[in-house]
């Protein structure tokens, strides 16, 4: 069993307490990062001097890797504070974030429980059904198209949609589009403004590692609470906690189908209802029930848990292991929606009073529901470890215990972290060391990050600027570098999509591949250049920037001066001589009309810097 004791509240207390909670339910045993303190007492020593970097170069490297790039003046501030101390504070992730918190208050979904979000932002199809029930619309061919976002636009369609929307707004419903907009807005705001940058970078890392996707209709409305409740609070904590939080969250349960995975017909179950099993029912009712019940064992979550989340591909497990793991997770499901939910909640209340369901082994944690009636209770063998027969939810939990501290998991995660923070092809010695630290700390994330930052490989000259920024990193670092304010993130987010990263919408469970070739291709490179030019020209809507203020209010005398000034500000801590030699001919063109007004010239210079190869690297 895992080392930390888990407190299972009686189900009655949970269901009573939940509706009154102001803040969303978080999985038992998770800690808020802002209250936690760096677990190490000894102070950190970052070896950049040994690697031959100057203080400013080192500060830039640190901010390019453990943050979304430097803000104006931040290099000097970090040097002054001390790089060690900066990193220690980032690991602790407890810095006050007042202005950001105030901004995030504009996003109501962030304060709703997962259930409230699902209720408030229903999918268009369900809205239509309810609108029809309320007599707002009648069914016809055109109405049917409303639920299909890609259908052709007609007047009738528009009219109908307006009617449905007006009715929905009166009922307090909001659109899923609005929910998605809040999700991406908070990500961009946090990346640009949060003081706790490492926590944001690691939230991005773990979300991508445990990817779920907005492209999946079923899990779409749960993606926001997934990041907020399962990922962000644990981004610097323990992998075991992340595993359980993601495994039990509706977004993952739906995305990888575990919610519908059930014991096969021939297997004994943790709980067998006394009434005749539905598969033995006769006649039409039996036929309907057979269709409705879960379709037997579904291996999707089990396979990706092993291949993507923990051990890694080719880590020596077999197809039989996948099946055994899938069996261990049968019954890991979620509360149903609609009328069935109320019925289920009533029965769970009874269970809390030690009724049949409680004794039968049903358990509820937030939206998560362990269905004892679907759990395969026969004995299992996972990676050589025997799980005894007759158990319930603890089967899956024990599998997570095994996987979290498995040497293959340590290697897999150490490699992924090194790829994210050092280079696309990290040195083996570094990966070995990080994997060892991971195992020593039994899957704690902070010690691994600390070992990484203290490694000579991280500070090697070869590693500096070796990574290509993801489109999101490019956008966030541009905005931070310019000292820009983002009032409305939507247009920026659209650019991030154009550059090849639809936020929260990578369809495959692998998450976005984190290497240069995947981020840079013909179409997306052009978008990167255009983003730089458009942003600098003030044509990215919702972004407020002041290029003159960025240069201390000084107006450069000419293009060359503008280039010198702005390159120093946007590429701080880098050796500018080679960069300037390249940039100069790009902006100083004799063919240019002599009379270009100065602000336009500055915009062009800044656009070229942001679109340059140098700025694509971190």
């Amino acid at each position, binding site marked *: 069993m895992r080392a930390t004791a888990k407190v299972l509240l009686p189900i009655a207390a949970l269901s009573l307490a939940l509706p009154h909670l102001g803040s969303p339910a978080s999985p038992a045993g998770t800690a808020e990062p802002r209250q936690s303190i760096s677990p190490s007492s000894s102070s950190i020593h970052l070896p950049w001097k040994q690697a031959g970097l100057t203080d400013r170069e080192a500060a830039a490297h640190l901010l390019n890797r453990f943050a979304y790039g430097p803000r104006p003046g931040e290099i000097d501030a970090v040097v002054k504070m001390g790089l060690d101390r900066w990193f220690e504070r980032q690991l602790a992730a407890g810095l006050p974030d007042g202005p950001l918190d105030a901004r995030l208050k504009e996003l109501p979904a962030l304060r709703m429980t997962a259930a409230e979000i699902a209720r408030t932002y229903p999918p268009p199809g369900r809205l239509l059904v309810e609108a029809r029930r309320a007599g707002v619309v009648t069914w016809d061919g055109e109405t*049917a198209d409303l639920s299909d976002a890609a259908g052709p636009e007609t007047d009738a369609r528009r009219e109908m949609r307006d009617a449905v929307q007006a009715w929905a707004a009166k009922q307090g419903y909001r659109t899923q589009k609005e929910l998605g907009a809040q999700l991406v807005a908070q990500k961009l705001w946090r990346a640009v403004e949060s003081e706790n940058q490492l926590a944001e970078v690691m939230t991005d890392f773990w979300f991508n590692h445990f990817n779920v996707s907005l492209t999946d*209709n079923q899990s779409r409305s749960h993606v926001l609470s997934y990041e907020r409740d399962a990922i962000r609070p644990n981004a610097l904590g323990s992998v075991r906690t992340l595993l359980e939080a993601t495994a039990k969250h509706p977004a993952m349960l739906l995305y990888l189908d575990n919610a519908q995975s059930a014991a096969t017909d021939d297997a004994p179950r943790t709980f067998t209802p006394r009434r005749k099993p539905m598969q033995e029912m006769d006649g039409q009712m039996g036929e309907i029930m057979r269709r409705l019940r879960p379709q037997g064992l579904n291996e*999707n979550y089990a396979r990706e848990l092993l291949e993507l989340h923990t051990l890694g591909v080719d880590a020596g497990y077999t197809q039989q292991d996948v099946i055994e793991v899938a069996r261990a997770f049968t019954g890991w499901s979620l509360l149903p929606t609609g009328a069935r939910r109320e019925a289920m909640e009533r029965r769970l209340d009874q269970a809390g009073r030690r009724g049949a369901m409680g004794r039968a082994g049903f358990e509820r944690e937030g939206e998560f529901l362990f269905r004892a009636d679907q759990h395969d209770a026969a004995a299992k063998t996972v990676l050589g470890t025997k799980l005894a027969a007759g158990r319930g939810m603890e089967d899956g939990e024990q599998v997570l215990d095994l996987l979290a501290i498995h040497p293959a998991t340590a290697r897999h995660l150490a490699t992924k972290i090194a790829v994210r923070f050092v280079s696309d092809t990290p040195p083996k010695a570094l990966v070995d060391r990080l994997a060892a630290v991971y195992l020593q700390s039994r899957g704690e994330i902070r010690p691994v990050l600390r070992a990484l930052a203290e490694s000579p490989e991280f500070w090697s000259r070869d590693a500096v600027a070796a990574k290509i920024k993801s489109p999101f990193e490019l956008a966030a670092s541009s905005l931070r570098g310019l000292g820009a304010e983002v009032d409305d993130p939507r247009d920026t987010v659209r650019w991030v999509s154009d550059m090849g990263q639809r936020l929260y919408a990578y369809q495959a469970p692998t998450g976005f591949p984190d290497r240069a070739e995947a981020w840079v291709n013909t179409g997306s490179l052009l978008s990167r250049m255009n983003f730089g030019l458009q942003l600098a020209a003030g044509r990215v809507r919702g972004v407020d920037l002041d290029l003159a203020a960025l240069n201390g209010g000084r107006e450069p005398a000419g293009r060359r001066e503008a280039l010198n000034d702005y390159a120093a500000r946007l590429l701080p801590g880098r050796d500018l001589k080679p960069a300037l030699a390249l940039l100069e001919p790009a902006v100083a063109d004799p063919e240019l009309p002599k009379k270009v007004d100065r602000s336009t010239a500055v915009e062009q210079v800044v656009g070229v810097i942001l679109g340059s190869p140098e700025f694509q690297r971190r």
Partner: protein
Amino acid sequence: MSTTRRLFLKAGGVALFTLGAGPQFLARAAGAVLNPSGRRKVLVTIFQRGAMDGLAAVAPVDEPALRSLRPRLAMTAARSAEESALLDLGVGFGVHPSFAPLLPFWKEGRLGIVHAVGSPDSTRSHFDAQDYMETGTPGRKGTPSGWLNRAVGLLGHEGSPFRAVALTPALPRSFYGDEPAIAVTDLADFRVSPSSPKEGGGFEALYRQTNQPVLRQTADETFRAMSMLTPETVARYRPANGAVYPATPLGQALRQIALLVKSDVGLEVAFAESAGWDTHVQQGTVNGTFARQSRDLAQSIQAFWTDLGARQDDVLLTTMTEFGRTVKENGSGGTDHGHGSCLFVLGNRVDGGKVHGTFPGLTPDALFEGRDLPVTTDFRSVFCELAGKHLGIQDDAALFPGWTGRRLPLLKTA
């Protein structure tokens, strides 16, 4: 536009210097080095998202079960020219009248149909079924790459930056993977903007000199692509042979694919999509949702094929959809998620004028789970055949990992 443009050609590492040359000339020059014929075989794929009702598109004409299970939706074969009903194909099937624009291709023997085709996985989730069809690995969600990306990787020769293009807002799952692929909805966006007096010139020099190899090579390809496809080329494009594309997303996507084919920019795999096939409610017969979607599909394909003219020999087009729909109509005049559907294949080498595959009939015992048209042809049998005979990809096991089935003969051997 600068008067001198340097063009790097990856193949052979030759650098060409040209003076005052127009982009068409450069494109031809590029093609000449890459491929002696200057032309490429192109596979064009259209994904019909939402699950097309294969029985509404191509219905068995003598099937009493269809009429009794679909009292409101079933159509009969036309007995006279005036009657708007199924267009009889003369092989025991009739197509929905909206597919009329494609009928000439059927008669000429270039259009083939595969019926009762689909995925062996029984999921009725759009998301899962589309995912499985696009990865080509039914039942496995973790496959990192899409089958069309793997196809590009198996072509066995150097390619142009335009070798894999999706006319979609985001890269489709089919194109996920190691091979570079472009997603673009409007080719006119393929430029540096706001355009400086030097066009991409400033960036071109910058990227040529960076020591980051991925950035340098990609930029080289990007500017090569831009020189092949200037804004003028895109703006000047006029469909040939009187082709008229519908003003729909699909019509415009196919129009741009034709532009790419005819511009000889090295296109080899193209992807377009058609949405709106999820006809749960008021599916309709001669009119209605299904009819409208089908008309768009048929008119778009017809315009595309007409526009291609002499280039038809190079192109093979296929449709696909994630699953079919219930044989029985539902209470809302529509159909629900089913299993097997049908697809269309168009090309001069297609063994056309035939309905391929095995149509199992619609008797209760023939139906999948007692309700749906079964899948008698795995979609991979079709895709392997097309990729194999048209694109010359012989390694079916690499194209569809874990699959050991056989190709469905659809193309005549040259």
